[in-house]
């Protein structure tokens, strides 16, 4: 089996994913082309240098529709002989793109790929692509569909995480992100510039100083839809009759922010690197993807981690650093308590609660963050994992070479 290596990884800063966000003026296709161009420039990729561009993107309608991956290639300076494929594994799309690239290399179907993803949530709102899972009565009832926020609250209720636990995690995420930004730890980050080269956004713009007291004042976001209209808690309690009720602990401050952003990773074989004179930064050790209970939905990181560890023949204790996507505080709390993990090893530079979660890009973003930190602190192994809508999970283990 051919090993797959990560040669480079970069990302844009994350902008607030609303019309008043700084990246709102930048089309998703240009945001994509920006990271593709920079990756090609830095690594001197010329001509038909990679097999494919595998591009994570969740809301594939409007300007993100019609195979945004190919559109981004054509928008960029890449050679037109490089195709593109848009993939949607919801929140893990960016990581899934890397995993698919690595696994094709390992299987001998191409020696190099650009993998990553993009999401302009300010321009193409989440959910604007519809979806049978929520609207088709047969499926919605069969799968006990509830929105992710309700699922996050079910996790908190089931495993006994309090509002205070969740808020404390959120405060810490903000603190860590601020320190990381101030110390310039995000080496993979490149500025977003306009067509004239003028800077638009240079740093993640959603980080804010907060405190447990500030967060305590926020109203829960999913209580109304859970308890009143349309009453998702009823559905949740039908599936989990052992719960007395659903405790609604999540709010805007302890959930991931809606964001715009893009990220790209150059994955290739050893031979590819040698031919292009590139030095690998890390090896992809193992990948995993799992399906889980779709109602509680966001518990995937635990089985995905167990599965990727098994695939790698490793123990949890073998991993030096973790990135667990902060979709909601309870997702990370679940991971921490299940593995009894050391919080000093998990999301050490903050996460999506502080910096935002541009759906299709986040998987690749956290992988770059993980790699940056492994290099900065000279650690060997890292694991990135995300929970995924409709009850899935994905994970990747990398090691420095």
């Amino acid at each position, binding site marked *: 089996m051919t090993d797959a290596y990560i040669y480079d990884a970069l990302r844009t800063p994350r902008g607030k994913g609303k019309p008043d966000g700084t990246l709102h003026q930048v089309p998703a296709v240009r945001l994509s082309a920006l990271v593709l161009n920079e990756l090609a420039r830095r690594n001197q990729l010329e001509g038909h240098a990679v097999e494919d561009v595998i591009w994570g993107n969740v809301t594939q309608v409007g300007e993100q529709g019609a195979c945004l991956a190919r559109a981004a290639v054509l928008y960029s300076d890449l050679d037109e002989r490089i195709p593109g494929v848009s993939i949607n594994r919801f929140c893990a799309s960016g990581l899934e793109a890397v995993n698919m690239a690595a696994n094709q290399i390992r299987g001998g179907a191409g020696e190099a790929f650009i993998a990553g993803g993009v999401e302009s949530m300010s321009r193409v709102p989440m*959910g604007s692509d*519809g979806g049978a899972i*929520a*609207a*088709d*009565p*047969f499926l*919605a*009832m069969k799968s*006990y*569909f*509830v929105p992710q926020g309700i699922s996050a609250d079910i996790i908190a209720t089931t495993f006994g995480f309090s509002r205070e636990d969740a808020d404390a995690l959120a405060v810490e995420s903000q603190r860590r992100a601020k320190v990381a930004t101030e110390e310039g730890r995000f080496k993979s980050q490149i500025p977003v510039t306009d067509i004239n080269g003028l800077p638009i956004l240079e740093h993640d713009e959603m980080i804010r100083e907060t405190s447990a007291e500030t967060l305590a004042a926020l109203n829960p976001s999913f209580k109304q839809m859970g308890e009143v*209209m*349309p*009453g*998702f808690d*009823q*559905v949740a*309690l*039908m599936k989990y*009759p*052992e*719960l*007395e*009720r659903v405790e609604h602990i999540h709010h805007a401050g302890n959930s991931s922010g809606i964001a715009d952003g893009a990220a790209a990773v150059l994955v290739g074989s050893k031979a590819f690197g040698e031919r292009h004179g590139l030095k690998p930064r890390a090896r992809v050790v193992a990948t995993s993807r799992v399906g889980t209970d779709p109602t509680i939905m966001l518990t995937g990181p635990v089985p995905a981690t167990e599965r990727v560890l098994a695939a790698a023949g490793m123990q949890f204790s073998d991993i030096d650093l973790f990135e667990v996507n902060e979709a909601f505080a309870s997702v990370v709390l679940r991971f921490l308590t299940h593995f009894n993990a050391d919080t000093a090893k998990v999301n050490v530079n903050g996460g999506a609660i502080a910096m935002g979660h541009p759906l299709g890009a986040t998987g690749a973003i956290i992988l770059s963050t993980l790699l940056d930190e492994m290099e900065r602190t000279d650690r060997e192994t890292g694991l990135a994992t995300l929970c995924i809508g409709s009850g899935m999970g994905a994970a990747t283990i990398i090691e420095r070479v």
Partner: protein
Amino acid sequence: MADFTLKTGTDGVAVITWDCPGKSMNVMSFEGLAELDACIDEVLSDDSIKGAVITSGKDSFAGGMDLNILASLRDAIEGDPAKGVFEGVMRMHGILRKIERAGMDAKSHKGGKPIVAALPGTAMGIGYELPLACHRIFAAETKAKIGLPEIMVGLFPGAGGTTRLVRKLGAMAAAPYLLEGKTLAPAKAKAAGLVDEVVAPGELLAKAKDWVLNASDADLLKPWDAKGYKMPGGAPYTPAGFPTFMGAAVMVHGKTKGVYPAARALLSAVYEGALVSFDEALKIEARWFTKIVLDPTSGAMIRSLFLNKGALEKGAVRPEGVEDQRVRKVGVLGAGMMGAGIALVSAMAGIEVVLIDARQEAADKGKAYAESYMDKGISRGKATAQKKEATLALITATTDYAALEGCDLVIEAVFEDPGVKAEVTAKAEVVLGEDAIFATNTSTLPISDLAKASARPGQFIGIHFFSPVEKMNLVEIIRGRETGDRAVAKALDYVRQIRKTPIVVNDARFFYANRCILPYINEGIRMVGEGVAPWMVEHSAELLGFPVGPLQLTDEVSIDLGVKIAKATKAAMGEAYPDADVDDVVFWLADQGRMGRKAGAGFYAYDDKGKRQGIWPGLVEKFPLAEDQPELVQVQHRLMMAQVLEAVRALEEGVLTDIREGDVGAILGWGFAPWSGGPFSWLDMIGAGKAVEICDRLEAAHGPRFAAPKLLREMAEAGERFYTRFDPARAA
């Protein structure tokens, strides 16, 4: 004689009259459909006919599909029932679609003949689906009901009503009529968009014909057949429609607890149909409808809630050969909550009432209850001042037993004490005529014992009402050891007069309904004592389709009543009393002063306004949650079997003599999972073999109260079903 006849007038308008011979209300049969089809063909093919009015020869339009046919459809078609039902439904669509398109050109939509519906009165089920396919609906200004109540018997509108109403009103606006079976009187139906015109009854036909003669091509074209049609409120994948459909699935799921397949199928037909053309949508509707017709729950619901309920109301178990026993004047002894309710429903049925209590104030208060009830009705537009006056005029509130003179029925609803009851029985009989029947409304005391106080035990009977009387539709009639046939006929005829549903059972402790519901409640409480999460008990019951869990039910009827019944039962049973572990919980709650909802404290906590909150935390402090919690299905089997086995024992012991009564009584009496059709239907659905298996497992784990009754074991071995072994039609 035909159901449909066509007659064309000199104006060239054909009048198609629906008039099923020998029936008080039209119902649609296969034969009727074929006749209608032939009429439509004649209208469309005869050049001298300009258009048609479809109306009725009765004061109503139609009550719906003949459910007897529908119920038998599944069994009648050999080989491939799904194919048979689907093709049958598609033929029906073909006929209605022919009316809707009326010969117009497929592209230009021109050249069709106007066909309108003229509804003289009630139009339900296919009686409204047929008009929906017409080009205009005229309704006479009456108090008739218009709508699609199919969902109430486990079906949904399957003759295009679902597809047409959603396309007419939008999914959200159509929901109350499709999902709840809501019906409206003509004026309100017009406001809601269900009918087009409401006219004076005398002008119905003239106005309808007038419209036919003046209709243009454009008037005939249905919006959904016109180019650029958009569904009101939005199709599923539009910004407005998406949340509607997402919310609908959640609400239907939450409300039906997953046990009513018809509601789910309806919603799927609506959703899938909304995404395709009208003709494709009809096919989709037919596919889901077929699935529901073939679903055992719809068959069971139709059988119990429509056919058998109707049969019992029409006197299916009335003793033969006894002349009409209709009540003219009823005496009610005791003007408490039950007595007042009995007086009210009797007076509303036009029966003269003498309401007696020991004190005049109490008697007056009983009558005042009727007054406030009628006032509420007036404020809600459901009653009139005249009706109130007439009702109250029929009630005489007094302390004087002499006023009972002339009563042909007396019902006592005094304190549940044999001594008190004996006293009022004797006092009444002194005044009563020789033929009068004396009934007791006891819920706990054996009828045969109470009958000892009567000088004529053959005319003594139990008529057990459920509380609140005006809301609960079941009446349990109890035959004492010496009760005669005329007394039973009297009770049945009276129940028919007050428009409730009777069951007749023999005399045994707690009769039928309470006999079954008490073990259900006790099993729930027992589990709390064992450390099963109280909310798990409640949720398990809800997921079986019970309206409330056993703990909430106990709170509603009050903890002290539970204590009282337990003490009385214990006294009567002595050593054999099996519910000491239940009493540990109930007596403790009573000691804490938590008497249930009325006290604002029970198994549940209540807020200052009396609104129920969660389970009272003190309950799980006293009875801590066990380490190992049972699976949902284990809890459900216990709750279900506790009452179902009691029903089987009641049948085995001869307390019940007709399984129809056991099923209908269970649903109406204590809300037994309506989707199942009742305890016997449920047992037939899972099979006696499976039931015995469950019993054996439960008996091993929880004791002899779950031992399979001999009858059930026998049936399991023989592979029998209740509705074949005890076939009421065969027995009759």
